[in-house]
């Protein structure tokens, strides 16, 4: 067996990096003036127009000039500049039932005046009314919450609450960082973005669960090992798979990014960020949370036991003297394993029968 890499040693550094990333995202959110919502969430009209390059040559500044009298118009180039395709976005100002037709006519009028009506091609037009957008926004929040809750329930049922919490914390971490990237680069937030975030939630979770599954398996095999060692071993064993799956997924997503345009390109970009962040968080966020929780729980229980029964009774009565000695010996082995996982009734490492400690030997194989 490969020698386990001590991923957990880096946990404080990594958690700090994560917190910094999240903070950068939040800062970006405020500095950039919030998220760049698409019309799915703000209500408005988006048209993709193309001005015949054979007839007139225009750049985005000229188009902006032509549309200068419309307030709050958002203009973007689509695809290669030579094809002269632009996206025009106008937000609905409050409740205005006639907005759609009025604005559609106004846009074609202004652009037609500037570049000739016969050179103007409206390639696509997309309108979302205010009520629908509000509904979509509400729905999005409920989708994410419901999905997370369901995942929490399933993982709690399959594992333990501390694993489930770690998994969900991971998901929140991934979502926050992705949202940060979206805010900083002002990627448009549409329903497709939500799909991207949900995919990453599923993906990152997939990663985390595979490792936790290995942890569960290793807890039976390495009964006397410290939780940190078990976690490190499990991450190391799963590393090949974690990297390979990330790689194949990235390969697939990269092709979407290369070939796609507009919404789909943004979708692929968010996914690439998400896959990287998801892989990272599985290794460096999920396991430390489990470790931290376990240690906190142990310390609290130990303290309570000491208060109630005194130092001698700190371990449960079912435990044999042999194990007591073993635990004390490992505690003496070094700082890292000082707060070792004792085998209380609630601890993840369960010890049911006496057996010789073979931890060192196992590692060598």
């Amino acid at each position, binding site marked *: *067996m490969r020698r386990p890499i001590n991923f957990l040693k880096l946990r404080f550094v990594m958690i700090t990096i994560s917190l910094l990333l999240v903070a950068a995202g939040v800062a970006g959110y405020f500095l950039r003036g919030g998220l760049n919502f698409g019309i799915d969430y703000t209500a408005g009209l988006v048209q*993709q127009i193309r001005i015949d390059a054979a007839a007139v040559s225009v750049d985005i500044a000229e188009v902006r000039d032509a549309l200068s009298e419309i307030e709050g118009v958002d203009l973007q180039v689509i695809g290669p500049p030579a094809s002269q395709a632009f996206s025009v976005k106008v937000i609905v100002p409050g409740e205005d039932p006639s907005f*759609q037709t009025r604005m559609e006519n106004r846009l074609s009028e202004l652009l037609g005046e500037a570049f000739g009506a016969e050179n103007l*091609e*409206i*390639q*696509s*037009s*997309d*309108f*979302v*009314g205010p*009520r*629908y957008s509000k509904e*979509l926004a509400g*729905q999005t929040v*409920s*989708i994410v919450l*419901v*999905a997370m809750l369901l*995942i929490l329930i*399933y*993982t709690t049922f399959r594992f333990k609450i501390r694993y489930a919490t770690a998994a969900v914390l991971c998901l929140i971490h991934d979502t926050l960082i992705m949202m940060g990237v979206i805010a900083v680069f002002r990627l448009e937030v549409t*329903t*497709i973005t*939500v*799909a991207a975030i*949900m*995919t990453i*939630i*599923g*993906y990152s*979770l*997939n990663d985390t*669960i*595979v490792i936790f*599954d*290995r942890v569960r*398996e290793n807890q039976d095999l390495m009964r006397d090992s410290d939780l940190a060692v078990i976690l490190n071993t499990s991450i190391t*064993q*799963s590393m*090949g*798979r974690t990297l*390979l*799956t990330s*790689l*194949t*997924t*990235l*390969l*697939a*997503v990269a*092709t*979407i990014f290369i*070939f*796609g*345009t507009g919404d*789909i390109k943004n*979708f*692929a970009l968010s996914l690439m960020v998400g896959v990287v962040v998801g892989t990272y968080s599985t290794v460096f966020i999920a396991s430390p949370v489990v470790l931290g929780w376990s240690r906190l729980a142990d310390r609290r229980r130990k303290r309570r036991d000491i208060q109630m029964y005194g130092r001698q009774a700190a371990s449960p009565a079912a435990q044999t003297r042999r194990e007591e000695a073993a635990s004390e010996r490992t505690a003496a082995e070094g700082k890292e394993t000082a707060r070792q996982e004792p085998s209380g009734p609630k601890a993840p490492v369960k010890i049911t029968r006496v057996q010789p400690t073979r931890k060192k030997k196992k590692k060598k194989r």
Partner: protein
Amino acid sequence: MSKRFRLLLILILIGVALAFLFPTIKWYFLVPEQKRELSYASRNQIKLYAEREAADTLRELQDMEPEELLPEEYGFLTEKAKENYRTEGRSIPRMWTVEQLFRGYLSREELLLALEDHFREEIVELKEGAGRRINLGLDLRGGMRVLIRADLEQLEEAGGQSLTAAEREDAMRRALEILNNRVDQFGVREPQIRRQGDDLILVELPGEADREAMNRYVQGKGILNFHLVDEEALAVFIEYQQSNPGAFIGPSGEILQPDILPAGTTLRGVYSKDAYGIDQLRGFTVIESEPGLSGNYIRNAQVNADPITGRPVVNFFLTGEGGEIFYKLTGDNVNRSLAVILGEKVKAQARINEPIRDAVQVSGFDREEADDLALVLRTGALPVPLEVINQQSVGASLGEDAIRIGLQAITYGFALVILFMLIFYKGAGLIADLALVLNLYIMVAVLSVLGFTLTLASIAGVILTVGMAVDANVIVFERIKEEYRTGKSAKAAVKAGFDKALWAILDANITTFIAAVALSLLGKGPVQGFANTLAIGIVSSLITALFVSRLIFDFATDVLRVSRLSIMWRRVQG
């Protein structure tokens, strides 16, 4: 389970998937472009097509030598002929010649009708098959899509009381009926009108987008009108028609305006429904171009029985304002005729007997005609105010680009993953690739049988699933490698690898599946399409990775007696 049984199961799966896929394959590869286009067309277009084809075929058959054998493609004609032979007590010929076929039909019209039915059925079948094949979404084929909300709250406010569930249902049903009725049957394309959820109606119109026509259609403005008939101009027209019959109908059935009519008058066709519910042109009338009254003033219309004669009458009621206009109109024009015009078609004409205010009775029909007229009149008055909440239109050229991009992305993404697996896992990579291909195949088959609408977002979902679908295989392979390194035999390593990886794979996929289902149930539009692809992909990747890959491994170790696994590049140290 024995290997033979597992193989059988997989073959059955492949077979069923093929059956699922068949309608999609047929549609995109076997049905000619022209017929695909026709299936989007309006009923009237289909009818015209069937008539044209039937006439051509009949001519072709008549031009053939009588003793020539009937070409295979017209085999469908013998069925009716056989029936006729039987009823006349003649013996049915073994080989059908053209002459024998003609003898099987009582008249030329009967044969023409049989041909027409056949061609019409063919297109209608294609049209109705849309629910069993993968359809291209708006963003891929171009067209227009409008999501309309029926404002039931406003209806409640107007009525001053909340609506019961049944009342809401009824209002929605009527709104749908009216939208359906507004469809211009002469339009080139037929819009798809579907109910979505509680109070939403989705209208889709493939092909080039005519935004103004769609708005008119949704708002119903100017769709139903009352026009006075111009008798003088009509007389002029009738005289002209006798010397130029048939000069007023365009190639697709539209009415052409002759120059001889005085300004301010319009020629319109008079229609009634035929057996297929399609409007048939019955004659012409000339109306004043300016409408006398807009149909928007109609409050309600219903069919009643005349208390004395018992004959059906149509009663309709106008709003107060409409009643005033109508009173003036009818008062000034007693004894003239008034035409009810829906779109561009005259649906009814009636003589004005006296000035009428807001309660109008029209009589002189049979029950069916009366029902039809009442329906037409109600078209003007929507039971619920409608509001456009989402409108999308995509040019056809943009759609073509999108398809090309989507196909390219799928091809390259898929190829990259396949190649990667092959290089990384060598022989075992081939197994994973086989599973991957089968996975894509099953996914597309399931999407096909569900009548899935493929959009750019769902193509992205497919690619993503391909990337993630190898995951289950990777988990297993990594496990097998581990076991193999410990010195186990190939067979034992494979068994241990699959057994130990099982729960990791199930747990991981079930949680992702939960996320996908939540997304599918709560999401709408593109999100839902994406989630469905993801969910289907998860299930099929589980089947292929755990079941198909396993069988191939077992086959290799048990039957081919492979003792060395080709799964990694590094040498296994004893």
